[in-house]
């Protein structure tokens, strides 16, 4: 709605525009603790990830905080220690919890600082009713939506995480590989033609029924699949995880979404420092990022193939626009399977063998981010 308004002016009236902008000054500063994860009081493992903030556009993927002591402390005497299973990844096996107990996350880092979250109430997530989809033909987008309700009218605030998995192929099929060092052409053990890729949601999906008379969420938009992405071409599966939030947690995620996903528009609020419900007990002015909550997770999966999409044109088959190379037997041995893939051997009587080579990006689906292993449930 907001961007519609913006686009309206930009596109129609005044030919305004959005251009890249680089601040003339760097505002980088210290590294602050970042906490993500929640206490899972259901049947799954609780995972808390600790990391540090980075300067803008740093190339590090994540700066894990290792060697910290992480505990869950309840207000009715529970104290549970988490174990660091990987650098920065602290887990706790599932167990039974008192749902009436309030919990806090407490962290001691190696640099001697202590952090603690506010006490949070356990929120039980209701089951997901359904995942649906609807085509937005004007924008060439397929919208996947979630529907849920809480018969006890007790949840009101929701958050979802999604995992999209889809099957796709490369444009060309390469059944043999050139092992240049061994001067041999071998049939492939794994043919890199068909891939499966899984993406986690990069957006914050939250919704509330607080303004409705019933605790019911209808047609809440989650993932939007653009036709150009070709995700729906063969088979597509969407896993939705649902969490119940407290009002404070909802406001935190809402604010985080607003400050990091939409700011700067004509009518968007000003960004501000947003930290969460975790504080440094040694130094109240130190920033700590993250919001600790406790609850259960509900999951539901929807898998669709193109014929289920009701006449929706799911995308285009991949094609290779790069030119092919035709090589002779000695030339082909000089190539590397990483850059060129053998797609055809021409063996005609009377002529020497020739090899048709295509760029690897056209004949190896892994270049498009997926893997060759089919998920067991797919």
């Amino acid at each position: 709605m907001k961007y519609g308004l913006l686009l309206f002016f930009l596109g129609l009236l005044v030919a305004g525009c959005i251009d890249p902008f680089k601040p003339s000054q760097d505002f980088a500063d210290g590294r602050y603790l970042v906490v993500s994860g929640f206490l899972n009081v259901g049947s799954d493992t609780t995972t808390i990830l600790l990391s540090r903030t980075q300067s803008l556009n740093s190339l590090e993927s994540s700066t894990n905080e290792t060697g910290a002591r992480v505990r869950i402390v309840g207000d009715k005497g529970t104290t549970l220690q988490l174990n660091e299973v990987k650098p920065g990844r602290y887990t706790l096996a599932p167990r039974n919890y008192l749902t009436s107990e309030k919990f806090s996350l407490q962290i001691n880092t190696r640099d001697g600082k202590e952090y603690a979250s506010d006490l949070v109430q356990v929120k039980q997530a209701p089951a997901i009713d359904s995942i649906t989809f609807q085509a937005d033909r004007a924008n060439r987008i397929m919208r996947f939506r979630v529907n849920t309700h809480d018969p006890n009218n007790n949840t009101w605030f929701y958050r979802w995480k999604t995992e999209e998995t889809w099957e796709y192929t490369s444009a060309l099929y390469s059944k043999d590989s050139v092992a240049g060092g061994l001067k041999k052409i071998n049939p492939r053990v794994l043919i890199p033609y068909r891939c499966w890729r899984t993406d986690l949601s990069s957006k914050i999906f939250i919704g509330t029924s607080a303004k409705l008379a019933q605790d019911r969420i209808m047609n809440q938009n989650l993932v939007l699949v653009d036709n150009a992405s070709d995700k729906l071409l063969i088979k597509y599966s969407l896993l939705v995880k649902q969490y119940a939030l407290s009002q404070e947690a909802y406001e935190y995620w809402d604010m985080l979404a607003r400050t990091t996903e939409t700011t700067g528009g004509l009518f968007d609020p000003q960004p501000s420092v947003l930290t969460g419900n975790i504080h440094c007990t040694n130094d109240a002015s130190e920033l700590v990022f993250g919001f600790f909550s406790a609850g259960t997770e509900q999951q539901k999966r929807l898998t669709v193939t193109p014929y289920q999409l009701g006449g929706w044109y799911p995308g285009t088959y991949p094609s290779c626009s790069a030119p092919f190379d035709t090589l002779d037997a000695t030339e082909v041995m000089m190539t590397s399977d990483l850059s060129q893939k053998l797609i055809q051997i021409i063996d005609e009587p009377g002529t020497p063998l020739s090899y048709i080579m295509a760029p690897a990006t056209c004949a190896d689906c892994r270049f498009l981010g997926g893997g060759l292993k089919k998920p067991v449930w797919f």
Partner: protein
Amino acid sequence: MKKLLLLFFLSGLFSFQVSAQLSFDGKTVSGSVTGLSFRNFVKVIESNSDYYFYYNQTDTDSVFVTASVTQKSLPAFLNQVFQDTDLKYAIDAQHHIFITKDRPIITTLPKGVFDANRELDTTISYDFHDKELTARLLSTAESKVYDIGIKTYRIKPGNATVSGSVRNIVTGEPVIGAYITVEKSTAGTSTDAFGNYSLTLPRGRHTLRVRSIGMRESQRQIVLYSNGTLNIEMVESITALKEILVKSDLDASVSSNQMGVSKLTIKTMKQVPTAFGETDALRVVLTLPGVKSVGESSTGLNVRGGSTDQNLILFNDATVYNPSHLFGFFSAFNPDILKEIELYKSDIPARLGGRLSSVLDITTREGNKKKFSGSGGIGLLTGRLTLEGPIIKDRTSIMVSGRSSYSNWILKQVTDERYNKSRASFYDVNVQVNHEINQKSSLMIMGYISNDHFKFNSDTTYRYESQLASIKWKRIFNPKLFGTFTGAYTRYRYDIQGEQFPINAYNLKFGINQANIKADFSYIPNTKHTMDFGISSIHYKVQPGSFYPRGEGSLVKPELMEPEQGVESAVYFSERYDVNRALAITGGIRLSMFQYLGPRNVAQYAEGLPIDKLYTTGFRSYGSGNVIQNYMGPEYRLSLRYMASSTLSVKAGFNTTRQYIQMLSNTAAISPTDVWKLSDPYLKPQVGQQFSLGLYKNLRSGSIELSVEGYYKHLRNVLDYKSGDSLILNKQIETAVISAIGKAYGVEVLLKKLTGKLNGWASYTYSRTLLKASDPTLADAPNHGNYYPANYDKPHDFSLISNYRVNRRLSFSMNFTYSTGRPYTPPRGQYYMDGVLRIYYAERNQARIPDYIRADVGINIEGNHKVRKLAHSSWTFSVYNLLGRKNPYSVFFLTEGRQIKGYKLSIFGQPIPSITYNFKF
């Protein structure tokens, strides 16, 4: 033409050949003659008598005597000769005959001429002008000498007062604020709200110069004998190219008592090129020093470091809450009916109040009382039409004007499905009746409605509506006391309809109603004192929001915010005292009161803890009309002017202001869902204090005016917002706001050239506006409770408005604007949360967007300037943002994959040409 003249001349020569058969015996003329030249006729008379002629050859060379008379007396014969000419004669006792044009020479002195106390003998008309009073051409009126008071032969020593009214000769409208100055003297005055003036001068001969914006400058020569009246009629400068630019107070900037006041007339505004070709009053106001806005698409004004809700915008005395259409792309006022705009940014008169930063007083002109006329214009996106005329000639006029956009058809043409279901339209209509009850009282009734309707992406509809009405009765009780009684009503509301999905289709509404009454009086006991006093009261009723389901399938839970109401009242008194010619002092006090009234449930919070929803202990209920909270406080208005010389003055002022209603907005620009909120037990009234000092100098005999003004301002109880709290439908708004204090200071330099082919103004402002939380220990205090720049803090600001008049029909105008970019909150670092990269921001407003630079050009082509023709028309071509510079409105940062990318958004990314046709009949 020349040939004709020559022929005429030759025929004169030939007629000289005709011989005289005319005789004169010293007393009577006899004989018969045809085509005798005047010169030969004179010879006939002179040769036969002691009569001697004094005449001008060129006056008489076309006079030929054709007569057949016997014994006709000389005077009778001369009467016959001059019968069809404009020549007159006079014969004195010595038989001198004086031939003059138009009027005869009086050859005797009146009786008692040397007795100063004797009244004039009027049996002989010594003043020929008396016969010409019917000639109303101003040039005549200007060259004429008016006798004021009872004529005496000699002028007595001492002072006398001339008073009267100044009116528009065409429409009969009083000319308000016309400056009347006396040549070769520093005396002067200006007309009041009825167009009346009064001026005390030494008796004797004076030349009065009368100047008013948009009127042709005029002068009157008077001989002041005793107290008397002189009514002056002025002609509107129709071609006006000379008078076009801001006459921001004319030379009054130097001599007037006030500082920080800017006056713009419609003719100035029409000159300034705009984005869509239509004259935009507010955009011109933005070029004045000390006035800024956060960005291009916002008509919200930030005056001397005030926020956008701290300006009182009055349209014929009715308060305006939404001064724009289409979120600021067009101003809400039809340029054809505007008369002038006055902006008070420091010395706010005591009669006005209720907002902290400024008063923008917009007045419309009166409809034509003499004849039916109309005007209008056609632009690319909008059209407008005004019709006006007398109901009772010279007494009552009506003016109806309307304006509408026609952008919908353009939207329908767009093939992109995202846009062609969009709708954007607006209109405004103004009806005004002016009635002159008698010479001493007049009445104005006005009604105004403005409506905006947009629909974007076919799922959300925005509607905005303003309704204004006002009635104003002006009355002169006696020449020293007059009063104005005003009643006004404002209704502003919006309605946002979301219907993306039937299940959550909604209607979100907000509304505010305001009714004002006030009585203002001016009492002028003598020329040294002017007193203003009055009372006013405003009743506010705010519907802070309702959220209702729309359609049967909607599950939206209806939510209705409790309405709130309050009464703001004020009494004021101010006096201007002209100590001497150099020093004038104005002092005023305005006592304002505000009562927040029930019915309402007011949340109570645990003592000693922050005001937060967490600490709500309950609600206290107040009955209808019960006073929930009382606020009262004095506002001081002091100013001083010292004329160091006739061209240099120094002024100083101290002002305090109070404000009891505020707009809640946590976005940078005015957003579609901003709400207004009255002061309540938690939101204290905003209080402002301003010290200002100014230096005014006229250069090159008043054609160039230079002024430098400095100010320091202190603000209390202004609002800032906690991050992320919703302001819409928030029943405990006090938990979402932070009370802040602010300081603002700056220097404004203005150089104006008012006359000549090239005119215009250049202004430079250096200013800062800083805010900090009133309670720095608060957890939500931005920037750890330290000062931070306000959103509209733009230290350097330069504007150049210029107009070059090639001739009366063609003029070019050019604007240039530079300002420092406004502050934004920069991103400081990044982190991963749930595997997704997020940014975190630095403290509030620590970086600036790139500077703003824009140039616009315009060409005005007027039709021919025959005053009497069916319709006058003009074309305006303009190019807005000629340089095509992509001035950022805003910058923002988005996470894209693993990168945080900065973007800047520009509203006008390229030159915007436009063309407008205007007409007037």
